């Protein structure tokens, strides 16, 4: 379908995000189409080495000690052709006392049979802060299979926050597998928001180990399944040190013939640790629904608005 290599704007424009961020000399970016780097710009203290492979890239991202990057870094992964595999292997090292926020835009607007595989190894150094927002933009066909896998190690007082969002276009298949290990006083927040319809399949596995004293973690999942979509959410949070605090929070709304399951596992192996969990699976709350209907919205409009809020 695509005759020539897209320029970086061509790919980035399909994300719906303002591409002026790619022209800003003070904002770093990396745009990767299939296995080719279309554009890259770095700022002082940030190093990215990319090796182009047959079906993707191998990237090493290092942020120097003591460096805080002011502007968010924009990374764009994706493919415009209808078919193919994109495999991203990432090794991220955020050194001590540094800070960075990454917006990852993953776009597969025309996919009919595309696989996007992400394999990330992330280390966040002592007192460093790493924030990673991954937003997926898929087409209407549901022809994408996405396999994001990450293993994250947090040193003392490190802060890691990640949000995965797939609410535009069809999911296809998504199979998230994230694990975070937390040392003393580190803080971890992992959130996934996914909107499934058609025959989409959503699998979320988030595991957190609060191994350090005073470490804290929250696992949050927000999922809507409509049509014949199915979602299986597995959250496991373990606390093995004093004053570790955690919370698992899963909400799944189902409509039509959707199916949702939630398996929260909470394991505490220290008398001074504490973890809570809440899960709500099923139709929309009747009071919320009736409030909006009492303002004149019909049932479908009301459900739509409630789901939009939940996934926002």
């Amino acid at each position, binding site marked *: 379908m695509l005759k020539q290599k897209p320029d970086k704007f061509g790919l980035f424009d399909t994300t719906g995000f303002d591409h002026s961020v790619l022209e800003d000399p003070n904002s770093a970016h990396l745009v990767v189409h299939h296995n080719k780097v279309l554009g890259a710009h770095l700022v002082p203290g940030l190093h990215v080495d990319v090796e182009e492979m047959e079906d993707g890239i191998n990237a090493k991202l290092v942020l120097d000690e003591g460096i805080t990057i002011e502007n968010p870094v924009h990374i764009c992964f994706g493919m415009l052709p209808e078919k193919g595999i994109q495999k991203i292997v990432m090794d991220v090292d955020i050194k001590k006392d540094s800070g960075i926020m990454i917006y990852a835009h993953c776009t597969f607007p025309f996919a009919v049979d595309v696989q996007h595989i992400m394999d990330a190894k992330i280390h966040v150094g002592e007192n460093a802060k790493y924030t990673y927002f991954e937003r997926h933009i898929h087409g209407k066909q549901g022809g994408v299979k996405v396999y994001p896998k990450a293993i994250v190690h947090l040193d003392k007082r490190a802060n890691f926050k990640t949000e995965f969002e797939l609410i535009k276009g069809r999911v296809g298949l998504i199979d998230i597998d994230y694990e975070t290990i937390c040392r003393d006083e580190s803080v971890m927040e992992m959130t996934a928001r996914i909107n499934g319809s058609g025959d989409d399949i959503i699998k979320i596995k988030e595991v957190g180990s609060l191994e350090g004293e005073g470490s804290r973690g929250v696992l949050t999942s*927000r999922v809507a399944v409509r049509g014949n979509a199915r979602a299986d959410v597995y959250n496991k949070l373990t606390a093995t040190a004093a004053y570790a605090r955690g919370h698992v929070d899963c*909400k799944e709304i189902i409509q039509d013939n959707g199916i949702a399951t939630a398996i929260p596992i909470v394991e505490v192996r220290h008398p001074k640790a504490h973890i809570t969990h809440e899960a709500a699976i099923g139709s929309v*709350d*009747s*009071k*919320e629904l*009736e*409030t*909006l*209907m*009492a*303002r*004149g*919205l*019909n*049932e479908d*409009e*009301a459900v739509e*608005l*409630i789901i*939009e*809020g*939940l*996934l*926002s």
Partner: protein
Amino acid sequence: MKVNTMGILELKNLSLEFEDKKILNNLNLDFREGHIHAIVGPNGAGKSTLAYTIMGLSDYRDISGEIFFKDESIHNIDIDERARKGITLAWQEPARFEGLSTKKFLKAAAKDKSEENLRNALLSVGLSPDNYIDRAVDKTLSGGERKRIELASIYIMEPELVLLDEPDSGIDVAALEKIFEMIKVLKKRKTTVILITHSLTVLEQAEYAFLMCNGKIVDKGSVNKIAGYFRKKCVLCDHKNKPEPDVFEME
């Protein structure tokens, strides 16, 4: 077909039972167009139940008797259709919507969806638009803030008849003044207002009042007359058919 009434809303022999217990017991009531009414009565009297029944909430549809709105029976029509006819309800305890912004919540209700109008609605309940318009109407708001946003959504909907279930609960003194002003604006717009309350100051906003007890209207008339029961406690009602303790526990 019902003909010729002065009332915008009329209840005829309205009863509702839950588990063989009459929660609403043969009510006959008229509400006059463009006026402010108050319903008072003890906990468990059936005031909220009456409001839910008029609104047509899903657990409150199995009634006997009739509800006429503008001379038309609304017994068999759904809640959203009742709303589109001009009836709305502000809950005693409003729902919370995870992630939904105040702006979107108000917009959903608004007749005039302009930004200016959304901001005015917040001002009408004494909330600063800059501080609230982008906040979610969820558990991050205090009970009183959530209640005021609920009232703002009523204001902006421009309904013909509104049921306000305990509009003062959780509201501070200064904000209560704002809400009374808002009720006056509703009256100016010729909205029919039904206030459900335990508070004398709220009751005093009304023009007509009803005293409800154990699912029945036991007295009605001027606000002054009904206010008398507040001072002397309820005297007409002997609480003979007081709900059983287990019914209370279900609440």
